[in-house]
């Protein structure tokens, strides 16, 4: 032991003695690498995060998720669309100017058949050049939340795309990779220096960036090394090989906190975890009960009361979650303290409700659960199984990888399933249209409330913010009463940081290097 200490000291001494680096290099890691550098090809977390350091959108969000001007300096709504005043003097990394033409081009590209952003961009039906630095985005009817939908529609240079034959994103039938998969030319604060997928991606500060001096960040170089294995990722932080881990596993958070020179930042994430109950089918597929017990609101309430959300928070999540009574998080327009309050835990009442509904001895059912998607997903399901057993529900748990789990929901093959939902637009419409509208593509509960459907439609065009917010509240109150889902909690994000660097944590889990400061 004496020997190792001596060695450790001498190694440290050596490191200290070596000449100090002139530049601030931020080394960081997370689980997955960007899939492509093409900004319109993959709507996926790590890809958006990586591309967002190189490319920029018209409107962005700061670490508090407040909308901020980026390539547009200002915007205002009209009856049939929005007008954006563009920032002047912005240059792409290859030196060409950013103008209104590039905005037109980028929206056309994002709306292309092969784009993975067409759902976000589709409400923009045409883009009109008013002058070099003014564009008008015409929408299909009034759109009160258009700027919210534009934060990950990145702007590309028309000339560069044409010269490199990447006018359209790569489609699935393609036989060859396109130039934009491994090359990037944005307007952002960092330029792509080198890239070895799954190994190392190096970005350097863009000396000609428009925002130079306007933000606190002082990073000269970013080295990103994805590390798939969670334990290895934490080891890299503990050993000082990286300064920042975006996604340490929750069970290691305490260990990082207690290590010298390291700290953990946490924030409530914009992602809620819940169970869906299919009340739509006439006969449950996996149950011994006759017909469909979930059609009875009492059964749905019994499920909500039988699952002890606080116990899950305490035991399964080690405190790192926020128990809830709704399926969207604080920070999203529509989340109110009243609706966010959990349904509580009352096994006796739950049992009584089941008896009232005609199931005094309970029934059996299968719970479909992913085992590699959300924080402790499988363990939450296991806890729910035990809790439901106490009111006589025999749950058969099927915990499988996400690649098999999500198709079950998509194909409406599940009676009872776990799902998590994040809201990139920070507006309840995103939740309604996918999870609560009768036709919602992720609504596998069969929930179909005429008024909720109506509100989902109305809030896409209602410009009067007060009226719109009131409608959103009304819909959430209906959902609170109807209980198509069993809300469990909002996830907590934890970032592991070395004391040498300060990065503001954000609820959308995005790393914003322009605010990162090396001490």
């Amino acid at each position, binding site marked *: 032991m004496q020997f190792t200490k001596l*060695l450790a000291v001498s190694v440290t001494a050596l490191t200290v003695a070596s000449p100090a680096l002139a530049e601030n290099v931020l080394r960081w890691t997370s689980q997955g690498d960007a899939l492509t550098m093409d900004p319109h090809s993959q709507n996926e977390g790590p890809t958006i995060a990586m591309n967002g350091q190189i490319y920029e959108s018209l409107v962005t969000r700061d670490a508090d998720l407040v909308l901020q001007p980026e390539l547009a300096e200002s915007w205002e709504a009209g009856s049939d669309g929005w007008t954006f005043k563009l920032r002047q003097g912005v240059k792409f990394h290859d030196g060409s100017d950013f103008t209104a033409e590039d905005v037109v081009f980028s929206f056309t590209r994002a709306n292309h058949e092969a784009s993975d952003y067409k759902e976000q961009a589709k409400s923009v039906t045409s883009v009109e050049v008013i002058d070099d630095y003014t564009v008008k985005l015409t929408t299909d009817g009034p759109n009160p939340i258009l700027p919210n939908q534009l934060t990950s529609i990145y702007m590309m240079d028309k000339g560069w795309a044409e010269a490199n034959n990447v006018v359209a994103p790569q489609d699935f039938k393609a*036989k060859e990779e396109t130039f934009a998969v491994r090359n990037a030319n944005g307007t952002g604060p960092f330029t792509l220096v080198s890239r070895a997928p799954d190994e190392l991606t190096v970005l350097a500060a863009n000396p000609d960036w428009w925002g130079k001096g306007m933000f606190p960040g002082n990073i000269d170089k970013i080295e990103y090394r994805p590390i798939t294995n969670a*334990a290895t990722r934490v080891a890299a932080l503990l050993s000082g090989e990286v300064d920042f881990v975006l996604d340490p596993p929750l069970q290691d958070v305490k260990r990082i906190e207690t290590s010298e020179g390291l700290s953990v930042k946490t924030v409530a994430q914009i992602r809620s975890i819940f169970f869906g109950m299919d009340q739509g089918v006439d006969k449950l597929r996996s149950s011994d009960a006759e017909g469909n017990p979930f059609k009875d609101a009492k059964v749905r309430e019994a499920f909500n009361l039988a699952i002890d959300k606080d116990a899950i928070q305490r035991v399964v999540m080690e405190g790192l979650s926020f128990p809830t009574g709704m399926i969207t998080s604080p920070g999203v327009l529509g989340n109110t303290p009243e609706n966010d309050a959990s349904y509580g835990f009352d096994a006796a009442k739950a049992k009584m409700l089941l008896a009232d509904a005609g199931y005094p001895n309970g029934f059996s059912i299968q719970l479909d659960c992913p085992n590699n998607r959300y924080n402790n997903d499988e363990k939450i399901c296991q806890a729910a199984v035990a809790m439901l057993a106490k009111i006589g529900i025999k749950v058969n748990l099927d915990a499988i990888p996400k690649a098999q789990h999500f*198709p079950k929901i998509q194909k409406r093959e599940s009676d009872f399933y776990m799902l998590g939902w994040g809201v990139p637009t920070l507006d309840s419409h995103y939740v309604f249209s996918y999870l609560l509208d009768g036709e919602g593509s992720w609504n596998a509960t069969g929930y179909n409330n005429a008024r909720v459907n109506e509100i989902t439609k109305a809030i896409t065009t209602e410009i009067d913010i007060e009226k719109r917010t009131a409608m959103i509240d009304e819909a959430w109150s209906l959902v609170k009463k109807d209980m198509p889902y069993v809300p469990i909690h909002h996830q907590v994000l934890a970032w592991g940081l070395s004391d040498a660097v300060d990065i503001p944590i954000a609820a959308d889990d995005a790393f914003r290097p322009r605010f990162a400061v090396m001490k």
Partner: protein
Amino acid sequence: MFFFILKRLAQSVLVMAIVSAVSFSLFNFVGDPVNNMVGQDATREQRLEIREQLGLDDPVLTQYSRFLGNMLQGDFGLSYRIKRPVDQLIFERLPATLELVFVSAIIALVVGIGLGVYTGIRRKSWISRGILSVSLVGVSLPTFIIGIALIYIFAVHLRWLPSSGRSGTVDLGWWKTSLLTVDGWRAIILPAITLSLFQLTLILRLVRAEMLEVMQTDFIKFARARGLSERAINFRHALRNTLVPVITIIGLNIGGLIAFSVITETVFQWPGTGLMFIQAVDFVDVPIMAAYLVFVALLFVLINLVVDILYFVVDPRIRLGN
């Protein structure tokens, strides 16, 4: 001889066809790639359309024959995940895996044979007993636990070696090597040891058992009687006679090393074919999975072929049997 090889080759082709067919039919159970290929906002129509474009709704047999046809034309398709040609991806990743396998094979051989001989000769010393008990760890602990333990000891606690990744690579144009720099060697030590432990233990125990047996034979007794030095007896006579089965095992186990490298590469973020395969499974990246499995099958078949030919050369009974 020529006929023998021809027969073996024909069998190999059959084996490859079966392996690829079986693995291909298994892909249907891995999950739905489309869900990973589009964002959560994609509509159901868009998902269906992509399924159709990729031909995922065709019968497995149709998909398989399409895959075979394309493969025979040298077209392995584009990765669903990273949208790059699969053969190119595999060849980019292959040097990392082969170097890792090479270094760990050397470790397993040198250390395994060395300790095997030692424990075979000094079988009663407490060092031998110690080595044998520790070697049990090598066979009984799963690779990822050994890997994580090594990372915590040598990277986190002692900080002697990097915890993961492959650094210090030099691009030779057709081969990216990390064996030419100090950084590269520092990075390869931990994964190579992790990968080698299982084979090392196997070789150690095999050599020891063979040594014990050979030491009892008459020609060793004669050698003793002739007054040869212990050194000459142990290494020139005994060891040589133990090596025949060892070489056979090693030949077969190189394939095993490549297969085991999947786990080691994941733990150490070693950017080889194994890590790529695991990520492909996670994503249901069928083109990569299919090509990788065919590639591994080819490797096994080739190694077996070489071993068979060696038998043919070494063992006259097989020749006569023909």
